[in-house]
């Protein structure tokens, strides 16, 4: 009896004997092989196409979104990625009855790394909004099928290019109501730059002194500036000058070549725990 019990115990303790016998791999060591950067990056971004409203109305306008959930430690890039990186990009496909407007990108974060490298990034979650108009000719009741082929560069210390295809079928109806993801749209809207006159409505102003742009917002506790990419206007020293306590930002610009088009950026105003984002859209300084 005791002998059988000992055998049984030994066998139970030797669970690995069975699995080895079955030809399964049995790891004796406790540590797993380290995950490669590429493996971690493949899991770091979860992208979806979502609709702000539950349905689209033929003849009406609405907003859809490209939404990204980003794993901790990783980030994606704004349309101006900054010194390094690559913006999120996409190719969109939908019915002829759907017109897609210009994408609305939430304001990014400033990301500074060793060597004075300044990037404009998104972490945790971001939703890029796409205003849409559905032709009245789109048959009522027939769903609107949209697809996007997404590309991005996702980085931790190292970077990995990635992408995916996302799609969504949005019902059409005579009326609509908020969709399941309205919270994401609200969060994104809270970080959209408001149109160029909104800065003035907050009492702020923008002016050139030679090639230095001065942003002044009386009452602000602190300000930050996110420049749009430009072929001919390069802001300088943004690590020091792109963020300031108080009510003034001075951004030195270097202008090269033919400076015809407007110089744009986002001004972030912080006051009493609240934030506002204003679009700045100015002509180059006259010379």
């Amino acid at each position, binding site marked *: 009896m005791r002998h059988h019990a000992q055998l049984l115990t030994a066998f139970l303790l030797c669970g690995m004997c069975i699995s080895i016998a079955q030809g399964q791999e049995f790891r004796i060591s406790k540590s797993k092989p380290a995950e490669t950067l590429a493996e971690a990056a493949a899991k770091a971004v979860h992208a979806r196409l979502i609709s702000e409203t539950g349905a689209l109305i033929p003849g009406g306008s609405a907003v859809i979104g490209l939404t990204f959930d980003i794993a901790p430690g990783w980030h994606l890039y704004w349309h101006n990625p900054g010194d390094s990186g*690559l913006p999120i*990009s996409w190719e969109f496909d939908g019915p002829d009855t759907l017109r897609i407007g210009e994408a609305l990108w939430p304001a990014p974060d400033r990301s500074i790394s060793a060597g004075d490298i300044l990037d404009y990034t998104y972490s945790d979650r971001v939703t890029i909004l796409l205003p849409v108009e559905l032709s009245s000719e789109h048959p009522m009741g027939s769903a609107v099928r949209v697809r996007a082929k997404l590309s991005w560069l996702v980085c931790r210390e190292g970077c990995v290019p990635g992408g995916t295809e996302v799609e969504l079928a949005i019902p059409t109806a005579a009326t609509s109501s908020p969709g399941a993801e309205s919270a994401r749209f609200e969060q994104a809207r809270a970080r959209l730059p408001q149109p160029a006159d909104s800065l003035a409505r907050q009492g702020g102003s923008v002016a050139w002194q030679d090639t230095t742009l001065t942003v002044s917002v009386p009452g602000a506790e602190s300000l930050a500036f996110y420049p749009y990419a430009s072929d001919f206007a390069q802001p300088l020293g943004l690590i020091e000058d792109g963020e300031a306590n108080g009510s003034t930002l001075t951004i030195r610009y270097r202008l090269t070549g033919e400076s015809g088009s407007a110089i744009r950026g986002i001004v972030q105003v912080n006051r009493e725990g609240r934030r506002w984002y204003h679009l700045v859209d100015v002509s180059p300084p006259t010379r």
Partner: protein
Amino acid sequence: MVTRRTGLFAGLAAFAALAIGVSVFTSPATAGGDSEKAKVGAKAPDFTLTDTNGQEHTLSSYTGKGQVVVLEWFNAGCPFVVRHHEKYNTMTDLAAKYKGKVTWLAINSSAEGKEGYGMDKEAMAKWNIAYPILIDADGGVGHMYGAKTTPHMFIIDTKGTLVYAGGIDNDPGDKKSPADKINFVAIALDEVVAGKPVTEAETRPYGCSVKYAK
């Protein structure tokens, strides 16, 4: 308890001050303001770095011998560098085309422990890189040139003047058709080697951030 914490804080502060003081005196090139960085049109900062075979290379010894010099900031772990050495042979083709007239040097400013550090020998073998890769692990030369990305390209003429700084081409996303792709370095090298001024001397560099120590 308060006394002990103060003492510890004072000790840490003293150590930090000492560390900062030491680094200011011993760092070969301070990451200073814009005025210390290389400027297109001005003399390119001279430097000496050691390559993966332990051989020293000094910039002025090449320009002094009538060579045009290309500097290619390099990190074998960066997908943009991989693209130009694996999907395309952008760098090695150009280096081979101008062999004899142009000395092509890759520089790796990745700090020890960061991406790209120690990956050079394997990269040279895998990608058939015939030119030296210089090790700049403390980032001194990278800071002197203001190298921000890998790749980040610089061209120095035979007089030692920096005549080009910027990207390898106009296509960060690798999306343009061959007809629309512009290789800025190829064009600039044509001009420099022909003794002509570089028409597009500064472009926007793109790539991964250089993995500096500080």
